[in-house]
């Protein structure tokens, strides 16, 4: 795992929201981009964060109950996490931010966009969960091992190894299981989608980029296409040669797409 403390110019902060601390890593300068991680968590200050931080201020929080953030025992739905993250954004005094959500984090970002659009200058949903796919089925992590699931997020296993290495260390396994437990707490049933989200997306008047991976084995492509249909100002980019974890497998490509979506660049 990447040690964020070792990355030059990256700082770690803790912010109290609704009685629990949310940890975040900060790097770079310029317009603020907040990156929400996958259900299997954020393993560190990744190349995606680093590349993006050359053009913006990148802030990578651990969602409540994930990684280094406290578990809100009362939170029972991703919408609860979105509420907490909206209050977390307000607490930073950012003004408007570009919100990037990857996979499960894309679902949280989409929920947040329906309740607090005034906080957002832009929205980027990367292989997002949150909608029941019209075609195919979201891969159910409950039925497979942690390792199988995270491996399934990559098309090229070398890209997996570049992020996670070749050993399943105790630290990695514990982090994955804590993150899976929190995912279970909020997204067990229905798994990874919300029937109450689609009707609200029509009101999201935020410039939105939806990114789909060409070879996503976790979230069917149709989910990304449905977001594009539902959000008025949305367009779709497809990243070739890539699995679900676009931020980890094609960091430069994704950083380029996000940079092009920043205020002033569009």
């Amino acid at each position: 795992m990447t040690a964020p403390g070792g990355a030059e110019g990256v700082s770690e902060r803790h912010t109290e929201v609704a009685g629990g601390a949310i940890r975040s890593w900060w790097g770079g300068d310029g317009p603020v981009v907040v990156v929400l991680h996958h259900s299997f968590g954020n393993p560190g200050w990744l190349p995606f964060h680093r590349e993006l931080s050359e053009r913006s201020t990148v802030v990578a929080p651990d969602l409540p109950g994930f990684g280094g953030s406290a578990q809100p025992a009362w939170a029972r739905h991703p919408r609860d996490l979105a509420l907490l993250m909206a209050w977390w954004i307000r607490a930073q005094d950012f003004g408007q931010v570009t919100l990037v959500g990857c996979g499960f984090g894309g679902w949280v970002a989409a929920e947040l966009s329906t309740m607090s659009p005034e906080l957002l200058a832009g929205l980027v949903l990367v292989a997002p969960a949150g909608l029941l796919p019209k075609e195919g089925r979201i891969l159910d992590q409950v039925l497979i091992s942690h390792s199988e699931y995270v491996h399934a997020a990559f098309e090229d296993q070398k890209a997996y190894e570049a992020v996670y290495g070749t050993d399943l260390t105790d630290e990695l396994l514990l982090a994955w299981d804590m993150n899976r437990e929190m995912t279970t707490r909020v997204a067990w049933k229905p798994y990874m989608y919300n029937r109450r989200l689609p009707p609200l997306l029509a009101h999201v008047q935020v410039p939105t980029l939806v990114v789909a991976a060409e070879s996503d084995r976790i979230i069917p492509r149709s989910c990304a296409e449905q977001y594009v249909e539902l959000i008025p100002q949305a367009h779709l980019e497809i990243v070739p040669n890539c699995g679900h974890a676009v931020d980890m497998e094609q960091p430069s490509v994704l950083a380029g797409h996000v940079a092009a979506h920043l205020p002033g660049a569009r």
Partner: protein
Amino acid sequence: MFLSYFTEQPMSTYPEDEGLAAGFTSVLFSNKFFDPVEGSRLYRERLAEYRLAEEVGYDGIMVNEHHNAPYCMQPRITVWSSILAAVTERAKIIQLGNPLPTYDSPLQFAEEIAMIDMISEGRLVSGIVRGAGQEQICLNANPAYNRERFDEAHDLLVKTFTEDGPFSWEGEHYQYRVVNPWARPLQKPHPRIWVPGVFSAETLEWAARHRYPYISLNTPLHLTGQLWEIYDNAARAVGYEPGPENRGYLLRVHVQDTEEKALECAREFMWMQGQFTGVGHPYWVSPSGYGSPDRRLLYTKLANGLIPRINAASFEEQLASHEIVAGTPDQVIAALRVVLETCRPSILMLWGNDGKVGHPDAMRCIELTGQEVLPALREMGDELGLHDPFALDTPVSLAYTPPDQLRASTGTPV
């Protein structure tokens, strides 16, 4: 001693080669291999065996519940309980146990329990369990809230049994604007609640704190001392002295006229232990959020293949350690003396038949056990002071223990 009959009711006629090829026989093992014609035959045979068990003198018949697997044909514990309530006259119906967290309506479950208790004329023991991890998956009950749901459903159940309605219930997991079931248990204050388990310290302590007997499910005999120590410490901390009346033990016991025949049938107990069936992936057995936090690393390593699955000991080893007892009545009586002296339970569940033991052999096992083994066990129980909750008429729980029977706590509350 309270002596009960048990069989897990396996669907023993599924194609085992399909299970071996799949590498697992639960959760996702297709039910296209379930044969309802065979299922019907097996259910009818179990019914005849239960009737015989009562006839030959068993005090109780234990039933349980599992899902999506050939090792158990009881996906709803109250169904067999209802049948037994109607077709038996004397034997108690021992549910070990009702997987409370998997039920979305504990109120409706309370209604079923009340009906069974009345129809059986007060013969129900309504045990409760958290349910194994895979049961949460099969019934889509969130494993991360398993213990919360267990605690809340238990509290609601007891209140429904013991307090007059109507009242409302506003819990975290269950809400009812009206709790007022027109079905109430015959037994007062409520049917006895026993708690089965396989050695979870949290569950042992929980049972002890409520003064519910704990039924150890085939825990290796040499570990039962540690198990009772956990229970006893928790019991003393809330002010009562536990004894054999708080202890139950489930054990595989097969009796036949000859040792050779008994061993042949008892080998079928291995069927349940991963050689042919009962195989599930570790991430189904303990999904994230289900287990104790202090075992998180162990279970996660198991789930990701870093620790090999523990295979069951060999048949011969299990015979030697008395995890399986088999033989002629005299041989079984001698072995069970060791078990009773070591474990000191007052409640003994005799797991008689499993795997592909045929109906005639199962019937003979029950008959011989009833005629020759049960009387000897009763004598042994008296000799060893193993008096059960019914014989001692113990309170059903700590909440219903008269204050003058409790003394000041002797330990740190747990």
